[in-house]
């Protein structure tokens, strides 16, 4: 099976700021990739480039088999994107939000109604489906946003800090839900998070970004083995993170 993400040497500059300096990524179909890194490392910017929201200043690659710089429309049909500060419409109900999102993907009528009902059940929001989204709690809103991100059954889902601000129970509930969807639909996921235990549990691959560059990547086990000082005691992911998320000059020093 091929890679749903295959990008090389992405760069994004905002004036003088180089938010992404050099990011290359590969994600095999069906896998979950976690992007880790300190605040301001360039995670969200990377996700915005991969989801075609903004264009890279340099770099190239393929998303879902389509050219990142030229076939944005085809890419958008194949991906779902849930931003760090995602936008539900406050004055629409949960159901209406989902229906509008479905219509934006050209799913309408009966098919849309059925799909929306299915998703409301999946994210356990049936009881609040016809309430305005502004009355939702943070966790409910996040679940609605994720449902909106997969309304068109994408192959690849981008989630930018999906569990930030959720209580521990809501977080585990969200993850078991997503794992279910991912398994059922052959969904590949790229997510960013600051919760290391989350990455440890969910990720098939971890990429650590620091100062706009990829500073480490591998399976959780590979990374732990690499950082371990003593082969009898594999390191924890927190030690891996400590090693790579410090001041970027030190991290990159040989």
């Amino acid at each position, binding site marked *: 099976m091929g890679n749903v993400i295959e990008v090389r040497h992405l760069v994004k500059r905002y004036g003088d700021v180089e938010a992404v300096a050099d990011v290359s990524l590969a994600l095999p179909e069906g896998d979950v990739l976690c992007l880790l890194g300190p605040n301001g490392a360039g995670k969200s910017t990377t996700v915005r480039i991969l989801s075609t*929201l*903004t264009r890279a200043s340099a770099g190239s690659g393929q998303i879902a088999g389509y050219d990142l710089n030229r076939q944005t429309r085809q890419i958008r049909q194949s991906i779902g994107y849930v931003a760090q500060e*995602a936008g*539900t419409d406050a004055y629409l109900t949960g159901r209406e939000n989902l229906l509008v999102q479905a219509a934006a*993907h050209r799913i309408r009528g009966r098919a849309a109604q059925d799909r929306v009902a299915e998703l409301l059940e999946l994210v356990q929001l049936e009881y609040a489906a016809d309430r305005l989204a502004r009355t939702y709690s943070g966790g409910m809103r996040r679940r609605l946003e994720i449902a909106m991100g997969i309304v068109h059954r994408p192959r690849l889902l981008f989630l930018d800090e999906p569990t930030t601000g959720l209580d521990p129970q809501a977080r585990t509930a969200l993850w078991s839900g997503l794992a279910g969807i991912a398994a059922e639909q052959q969904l590949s996921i790229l997510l960013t998070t600051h919760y290391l235990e989350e990455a440890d549990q969910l990720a098939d691959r971890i990429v650590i970004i620091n100062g706009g560059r990829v500073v480490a990547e591998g399976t959780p086990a590979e990374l732990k083995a690499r950082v371990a000082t003593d082969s009898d005691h594999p390191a924890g992911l927190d030690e891996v993170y400590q090693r790579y998320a410090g001041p970027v000059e030190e991290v990159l020093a040989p």
Partner: protein
Amino acid sequence: MIIAIITRTSIAAVGDQFTATTTMLGRGYRMLRRQPLLFPIMLVQPMVWLLLYSQLFNRLPRLGGFGTDSYLQFLAPGIAVISAFSHGAWEGPGMIADIERGALDRFLTTPMPPSTLVVSRTVQAAIIGSLQAAAVVAVAYAFGARPNDLISVLVILVSAALICAGFAAFSYALALLFRRQETMIAVGQFAVLPFMFLSATLTSVAQMPPWMQEVSALNPVSWAVDAARTSMLGTAGSRVLVDLAVLVLLVAAMQVFARFALGRYRRAL
């Protein structure tokens, strides 16, 4: 063969644009409907303007150059147009709300044509602007100011829709470029008075000092007022078609500007 393919793809593109626009209009309508007091204010405000100004300046036509003795009849098309203009100039904050809530970014990652995000809002604004104009015409009618015929009513509504659409697209462009709610509120507050007084909305051009006449001739609000008023008074000539054509060009130019601003917005994301 090639032409057939191009035609087919462009028909498909128009179809996409159309369905996407209806989706966004449906969303907009639901959201507007839930804003308390919005529709009453939208309809009452133009009437307040109409009735206050028509009382205040009742005797103005005696100065000459108004083309009618009834100031209400002279004023109604002007208020119809300026209400629609004002609605358009105040469209920016809605775009900012979509930007701030992340709704714009969400739609930008769907296959919906990006231009829909500007076009659908423009269409929605134009519909509201012409509804406001219709309310003004209806109230003026009730107070005795009769439009010349049904076609003239249509011209008034179209002029209102076009001026609203032009300035709505302009304010979307500013919203996308500056992304600041305060800026857009300042634009809305600033725009109405100068555009109203530096145009033929309230008074005959003949009564203006020369410099104002010149500014007024360049003011798009004047073009719309001109088309609407000559129709209302039954004095319309071929000039109406020129006015409307120029307004269409204005709308088209502002759409291009807003598309450019959307491109800028995306690159700065």
